[in-house]
C-alpha cells in the first residue's frame, strides 16, 4: 500500500511542480523577454465601428460613473455605440441608463423584463442582437476604463488572426478592506505577469469576460455566449482558439474595477469562477488535445489553464498525503515529499499566482508597498481550497444526478469605488 501512496504523491508533486515552473517562466518572461508578439499602436487609419455592451442588473450605485466615462472616451463618437442591457433591474439602474440615453445618441438601453440576474451570457446575447459594431466590447457596470482604452484595444483587430483582445484590470478600491488588498495582489500577478507572459510566449491569454472585445463575426459564428456555462469567458476563450483565432492581451489598456470587499462576496464570486472553470475544463479538454488549430505550446498552456482551479485541491491533497506518508513510514523519501507540498503552498496561492509572480508584478508596476502584503496570500489560498473543494463536489454531484443547471451568483457592488475616481483621473492626466 505504501508504494501506492508514494506513487500518488510523486504524481501530485510532478503536476504541482509543472505549474511552479510555468509560473517561474512567466515571471522571467514578464521581466526580461523582449521578443514575443508585435504591439499595435492606435492608428486613425484603422478604427472599426465598435459596440460596447454593458450588462446591468441592479447596478444603480456604479453604472452612472461608467456611463459618464463612456461619453468621455476618445474613440470617434460616430464609430462608437454603447448598449446598456438592463437585466430586469428592480432599482434605479434603468432610470439612470435612460437619462443618459436621452442626452447622448450613442447610448442605447435595452430592457429585459424577466429573468433578471440569471446569468451574464443571456444578457450579452440579448445585447449582441442589437449591436451593429464590427467589434463587440464588454464592460461590467462596476468598471471604469481609461479614456483611450477602445483605441488601444481595437488596434489589435487589424491582425485578421486576432479574434479577441483583453485589457488589464486594476483594482480601484484597493485600500478599502483586507479583501480588496488581497484581490489587488491577485490581479497584479494575474494580469501584469501571467496574462502578459502568455501573450508574449504565444500561449493562450484568457478573455476575462470584461475589459475586452471580440470580433462580431466570430461571436455570431460561435452562437454567442453559452448560457449554460458559469465561466462564459473561459468557455468563449477556448471556443475562439478551437475555431482558429488568437486572443491578444494589451497590458497598457487599463480599466479599474470595484473589487469585492467582503469575504462573503469573495466566496460567491470565486465559487462561480471555480465551478465555471471546472465546467469549461470538462467541456474543452478533449477538443483541445485533438484540435489541429492549436500549436503544441498552446495545447500545453491550454491544458494547464483549464485545470488551474483543480490546483488548490491537489496541493491540499498532496499536503494531506505527505502527512500520512510521514506517519506511516519514516524514510527520507517521506520527509522529502513532506517538504515539497509546503513549498507549493506559497506557490499556488491567491488567484493561483505564486508569491514571486505577484511580487515581480508589483515591482514592475512600481507599487512596492503592495509587496509587503504578499505574506498574507496564504489566507486567500486556504479560502480558495475550501471554495474549489465545494465547487468540485457540487459539480460532481450535479453530474451524477444529471442536473446540469447552475445558479448564477451575481456580484453586488456598493459604489465605494466612487471615492477613488478623482484620484484615478488625476493620475491618468
Amino acid at each position, binding site marked *: 500500500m505504501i508504494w501506492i501512496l508514494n506513487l500518488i504523491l510523486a504524481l501530485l508533486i510532478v503536476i504541482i511542480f509543472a505549474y511552479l515552473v510555468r509560473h517561474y517562466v512567466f*515571471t522571467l518572461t*514578464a*521581466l*526580461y*523577454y*523582449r521578443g514575443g508578439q*508585435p*504591439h*499595435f*499602436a492606435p*492608428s486613425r*487609419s*484603422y478604427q472599426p465601428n465598435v459596440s460596447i455592451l454593458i450588462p446591468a442588473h441592479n447596478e444603480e450605485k456604479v453604472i452612472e460613473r461608467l456611463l459618464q466615462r463612456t461619453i468621455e472616451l476618445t474613440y470617434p463618437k460616430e464609430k462608437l455605440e454603447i448598449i446598456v442591457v438592463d437585466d430586469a433591474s428592480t432599482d434605479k439602474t434603468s432610470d439612470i441608463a435612460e437619462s443618459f440615453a436621452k442626452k447622448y445618441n450613442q447610448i442605447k438601453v435595452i430592457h429585459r423584463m424577466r429573468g433578471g440576474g440569471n446569468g451574464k451570457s443571456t444578457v450579452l446575447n440579448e445585447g449582441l442582437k442589437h449591436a451593429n459594431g464590427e467589434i463587440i466590447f464588454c464592460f461590467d457596470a462596476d468598471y471604469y476604463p481609461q479614456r483611450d482604452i477602445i483605441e*488601444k484595444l481595437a*488596434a489589435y483587430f*487589424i*491582425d485578421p488572426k486576432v479574434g479577441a483582445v483583453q485589457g488589464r484590470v486594476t483594482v480601484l478600491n484597493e485600500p478599502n478592506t483586507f479583501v480588496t488588498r488581497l484581490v489587488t495582489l491577485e490581479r497584479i500577478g494575474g494580469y*501584469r505577469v501571467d496574462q*502578459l507572459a502568455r501573450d508574449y510566449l504565444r500561449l493562450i491569454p484568457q478573455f476575462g469576460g470584461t475589459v475586452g472585445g471580440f470580433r462580431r463575426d466570430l461571436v455570431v459564428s460561435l452562437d454567442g455566449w453559452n448560457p449554460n456555462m458559469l465561466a462564459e469567458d473561459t468557455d468563449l476563450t477556448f471556443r475562439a482558439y478551437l475555431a482558429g483565432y488568437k486572443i491578444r492581451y*494589451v*497590458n*497598457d489598456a487599463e480599466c479599474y474595477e470595484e473589487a469585492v470587499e467582503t469575504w462573503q462576496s469573495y466566496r460567491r464570486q470565486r465559487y462561480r469562477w471555480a465551478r465555471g472553470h471546472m465546467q469549461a475544463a470538462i467541456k474543452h479538454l478533449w477538443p483541445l488535445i485533438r484540435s489541429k488549430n492549436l500549436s503544441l505550446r498552446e495545447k500545453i498552456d491550454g491544458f494547464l489553464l483549464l485545470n488551474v482551479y483543480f490546483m488548490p485541491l491537489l496541493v491540499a491533497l498532496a499536503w494531506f498525503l505527505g*502527512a500520512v506518508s*510521514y*506517519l506511516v513510514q519514516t524514510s527520507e523519501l517521506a*520527509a522529502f515529499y*513532506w*517538504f515539497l507540498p*509546503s*513549498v507549493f*503552498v*506559497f506557490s499556488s496561492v491567491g488567484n493561483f499566482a505564486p*508569491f*514571486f509572480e505577484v*511580487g*515581480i508584478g*508589483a*515591482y*514592475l508596476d*512600481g507599487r*512596492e*508597498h503592495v*509587496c*509587503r502584503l*504578499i*505574506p498574507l*496570500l496564504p489566507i486567500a489560498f486556504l479560502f480558495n481550497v475550501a471554495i474549489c473543494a465545494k465547487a468540485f463536489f457540487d459539480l460532481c454531484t450535479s453530474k451524477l444526478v444529471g442536473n446540469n443547471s447552475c445558479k448564477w451568483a451575481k456580484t453586488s457592488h456598493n459604489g465605494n469605488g466612487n471615492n477613488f475616481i478623482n484620484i484615478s483621473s488625476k493620475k491618468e492626466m
Partner: protein
Amino acid sequence: MSLQLSGCSAPHKEDPQYMHVAIGAIIVIVLVFILQHFLIGATMLSLIAFNMIFLFLTFPLRGPLWCKIVWLMLGNAVGVMFGIIRLSFSFALRNDFQGIDFFLNLIIDFLWIVPIWSLSLSFLGMMKHRKNGVENPK
C-alpha cells in the same frame, strides 16, 4: 491600411544584471558551504530555497548590489535563527509532539522566507525610485 508597430506601448522590461547574479552566486555558495557545517535537514533545505529564490529573482533586478547582499545576509541570519528556535522546540517536544513539530516546521520556514523576500523587493523598488528621482527630478 498599414500595420503600425509601436515600441512605446510595450511594457517596461528589465535588463538582467548578470554581474550581480555572478557575485550573488559566489556569496550563496560560500554561505551554503559554511552553514552546512552547522545546520542539517529541513533548515538547510529552507535556506537553500531562500538563497535560490533570492539569487534568481532578486539579484538580476536593477538596484544597488550592496542592498541585495545586505538583504541576502539578513535573510540567511533570520533563517539560521528560525532553524535554532525550531531545533530547540524539536528537542524539547520530540517525545510528545514529534508529528506536530514536523507538521509545523516547514510551514514556519516559508513564513520567514516569503516576508523577507517581499520586503527586500519592496526596498529594492524604493531604491530604484529614489535613484530615478535623483536622475530625473522632474
